[in-house]
């Protein structure tokens, strides 16, 4: 009964062929993107500006730019609330949104170094004879909250108290005085910000409005990360409950919470956008990167929540957004780097990507197999294939060779060099020594352990990580390994796979409890600080940060020693030694449960035709594009 006309269908078919033809011929590449030549002074790497463009050196941006305007940042993720430490939260986006609102004692510069943010100068660390440490801090003069109230040492004390004291939950659900002070694990639900190391603090003394002293039971290498957010004593709430509510809403009974940063929270249209306005009482940025030491140039910031990564880039290209920061991916670079209207910035932060090995796995429990895995991998190919084209020389060209190594820090040793270069001969020799043999298709098998198939998982949806997995998958196929990619979408990966209850129970008990078969290999990044204190926990026996199942008493003894080493050079040496446990077999057969890959770059693009180059400084600490918001300026 349906008489379809043949001609119409033929037309449709022809059209489909035409699509292919068009696809094949129109693929000139750059011709499409060059169509809208808005004249710009190309910034940084984009030097081939059109002929008519004034080709003078980019002038000092401050002179060229003007004040005013609203900066629009398109981002895919929307936080559940503004309370970073809410168990429902803990997302990077929340800390990125808070970074222009609230400052801490120390900030982290584009060069991944701490600088005194609210402090007037570096804190002075005094070692006492009994092994305790007292640290003297001096705040900058003239610090002020956005409501005009002075920011004093009392605010830091308030922050300390609210973190340490409000840390136990009573039966009635109220949060009161709690465990942290007694040196136990904190039972505080909500206050985790700047928490690591705070249990070592024995006393907090306010000496004057700008001076205070913190006593610690022993030195903690990561002490600069303490009080990375300082809350306002007069406005953030009198008890933990109130603070929890206020921080989540970013408002108290009187209105929006006062800021110590260059922006003030304004409004939040859920699912659409979050708005901030300029803090006219801002005391000025102390960052070595900042070119502007006064209040922000822009009137405000709007964060647009744009769900799809491609749509984000489209919105930038369509001029609907000025800046985007996506998960690094090749298409991003292709579509923006090739266009002179856009500038792409990247920098390496203290975040390292690695392959973590489950040493309880039937294959991976054999150090020979773990070593074979390290031999079979070629990080150079990963770097030249993926990272160098995107990030240029902002990352170490040979990849990361030390899990305790971070950019711009100390004399750390590349321990991975010995395995480098896709040495499949060495890998296969190892496998054969361990009793494996070729099963016929190039994949090895063991008479008892079976076929050498290992699953590698990560957070799905991260294009760069997925490509990286595929490169390594192909490399390892030459070394007798069959790698199955087994990702779980988004953040659920952690909770469902390496950090699931059963998997952690197995890791903590050496396989006696829980389920050691949930995962084989995991790929993710540990977020560190410029000082690696705390990062050593990932190898401690039974530690919640150690899903790998690694257990070595020597490591357990050495790690706290490293964290408590005061001298920079000595500490670096100590961490180098610690890394030998993690990435090599030199410290015994328990070693080599991590294979470092690379630093994780942060990566963003902006409309260079609209924004002046100022303000878009490297963002090594991964604090988001708004870190330097005070410098942003429209042309």
């Amino acid at each position, binding site marked *: 009964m*349906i008489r379809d006309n043949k001609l119409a269908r033929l037309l449709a078919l022809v059209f489909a062929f035409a699509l292919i033809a068009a696809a094949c011929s129109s693929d000139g590449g750059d011709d499409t993107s060059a169509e809208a030549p808005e004249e710009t002074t190309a910034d940084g790497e984009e030097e081939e500006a059109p002929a008519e463009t004034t080709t003078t050196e980019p002038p000092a941006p401050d002179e060229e730019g003007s004040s005013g305007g609203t900066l629009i940042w398109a981002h895919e993720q929307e936080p559940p609330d503004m309370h970073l430490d809410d168990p429902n939260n803990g997302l990077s986006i929340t800390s990125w949104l808070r970074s222009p609102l609230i400052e801490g004692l120390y900030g982290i510069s584009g060069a991944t170094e701490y600088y005194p943010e609210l402090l007037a100068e570096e804190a002075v660390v005094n070692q006492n004879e009994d092994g305790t440490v007292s640290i003297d801090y001096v705040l900058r003069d003239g610090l002020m909250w956005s409501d005009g109230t002075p920011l004093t040492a009392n605010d830091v004390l308030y922050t300390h108290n609210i973190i340490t004291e409000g840390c136990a939950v009573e039966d009635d659900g109220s949060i009161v005085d709690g465990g942290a002070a007694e040196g136990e694990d904190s039972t505080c639900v909500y206050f*985790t910000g700047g928490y690591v190391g705070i249990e070592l603090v024995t006393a907090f003394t306010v000496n004057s409005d700008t001076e205070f002293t913190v006593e610690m039971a022993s030195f903690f290498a990561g002490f600069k990360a303490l009080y990375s957010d300082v809350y306002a004593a007069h406005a953030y709430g009198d008890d933990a409950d109130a603070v929890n509510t206020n921080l989540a809403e970013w408002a108290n009974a009187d209105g929006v919470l006062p800021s110590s940063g260059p922006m003030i929270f304004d409004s939040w249209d859920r*699912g659409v956008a979050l708005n901030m306005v300029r803090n006219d009482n801002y005391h000025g940025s102390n960052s070595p990167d900042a070119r502007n030491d006064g209040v922000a140039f822009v009137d405000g910031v709007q964060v647009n929540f744009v769900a799809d990564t491609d*749509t984000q880039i*489209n919105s930038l290209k369509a001029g609907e957004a000025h800046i985007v920061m996506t998960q690094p991916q090749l298409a991003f670079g292709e579509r923006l780097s090739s266009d002179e209207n856009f500038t792409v910035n990247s920098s390496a932060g203290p975040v390292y990507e690695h392959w973590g090995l489950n040493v309880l796995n039937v294959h991976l429990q054999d150090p020979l197999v773990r070593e074979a895995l390290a031999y079979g991998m070629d990080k150079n190919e990963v770097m030249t294939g993926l990272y160098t084209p995107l990030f240029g020389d902002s990352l170490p060209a040979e990849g990361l060779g030390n899990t305790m190594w971070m950019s711009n820090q100390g004399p750390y040793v590349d321990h991975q060099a010995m395995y480098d270069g896709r040495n499949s001969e060495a890998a296969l020799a190892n496998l054969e020594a361990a009793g494996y043999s070729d099963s016929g298709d190039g994949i090895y098998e063991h008479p008892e352990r079976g076929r050498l198939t290992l699953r590698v998982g990560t957070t799905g949806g991260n294009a760069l990580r997925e490509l990286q997995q595929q490169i390594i998958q192909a490399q390892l196929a030459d070394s007798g390994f069959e790698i199955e990619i087994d990702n779980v979408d988004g953040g659920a990966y*952690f*909770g*469902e796979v390496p950090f699931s209850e059963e998997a952690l129970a197995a890791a903590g008990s050496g396989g006696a409890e829980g389920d050691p078969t949930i995962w084989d290999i995991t790929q993710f990044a540990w977020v560190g600080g410029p000082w690696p204190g705390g990062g050593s926990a990932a190898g401690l026996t039974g530690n919640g940060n150690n899903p790998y199942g690694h257990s070595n008493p020597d490591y357990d003894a050495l790690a706290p020693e490293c964290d408590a080493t005061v001298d920079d050079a000595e500490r670096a040496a100590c961490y180098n030694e610690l890394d030998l446990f993690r990435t090599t077999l030199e410290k015994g057969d328990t070693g080599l449960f991590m294979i470092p890959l690379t630093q994780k770059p942060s990566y963003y693009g902006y409309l260079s035709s609209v924004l002046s180059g100022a303000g878009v400084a490297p963002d090594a600490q991964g604090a988001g594009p708004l870190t330097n918001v005070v410098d942003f300026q429209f042309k």
Partner: protein
Amino acid sequence: MFIFALRRLFAAIPVFLVATFAIFWGTSEIVDPTDRLATCQTCSQAAYDRIIDLYELDKNVPLRYASWLGDFVTGDMGAATSQGERPVSEIFWERGRNTMLLALPAFFLLMGLGAATGIYSALRQYSKGDYAITSISYLGLAMPTFFFGLLLQVVFAIWVPKYLGVKPFWASGMHLESPLQFIRSVTLPVITLMFVLLAGDSRFIRASVLDIKSADYIRTARAKGVSERKVISKHLFRNAMIPAVTVWSLDAAALFGGSLITETIFSWPGFGRLAIEALQAGDLDLLMSISFAIIVLVIMFNLLADILYGVIDPRIRYD
């Protein structure tokens, strides 16, 4: 007819119960709300207990479902943990409204265009217009939505910069008070939503008009000397509308329930995007409320179609 509607409504209740339970059960299988604590290094047992308590994770799935249903029917839709524990009811209406902003224009355009192209194709069978419409319909049937949506976005928001000012997504300045901004924002997503559905509608209406064209009563009418215009307007249209009502009710159910892909691509804060966000965040209360809405919509529109059938076609009786 009223009794018929009531009976259908009652018959729908077990369908509704089983369907919501199936979703509840499936979601509970894959989503563990305590997962999000796994990476929270300093989160304590208290935080864990709180989530267990919130979702009653210590009970089995049927009990939890019963508890959810009890709360839901008494008006307590729960709190959305993925949105700072805001009440679900609040989010529900807000996002529902946004979905309607897309769905209503898409639906009316779809009805109009579907009927217009379908009837035109049938009346002018084998004309150039018919060929064009049918070709486009075939393409619509053969193209994945996300592909079509991104293509539109790239073409109209980038390649032809700011053509008529259409926006590549829910633009920040979008307010209902500004009709122009509104139209610019909804244009591309509405076209995307409509295009895929339009193909099927148009072809279906064309087929049913063709069927009726050769039906006896039309021949009779013509033979009696009724004017062609009257034949078309009185007999043809009315009869072609009967099957079209089914299509439209299905369209309505599909559109008003929110579209996952279109809303994601055009960054539209509606139901569809909310559903996937809730699923990814393990936000059970939110997800269940959305599922509830979608299931009810489907049931209601099916019922509506059946009732409209009777209104349009007097031959159909309800007993």
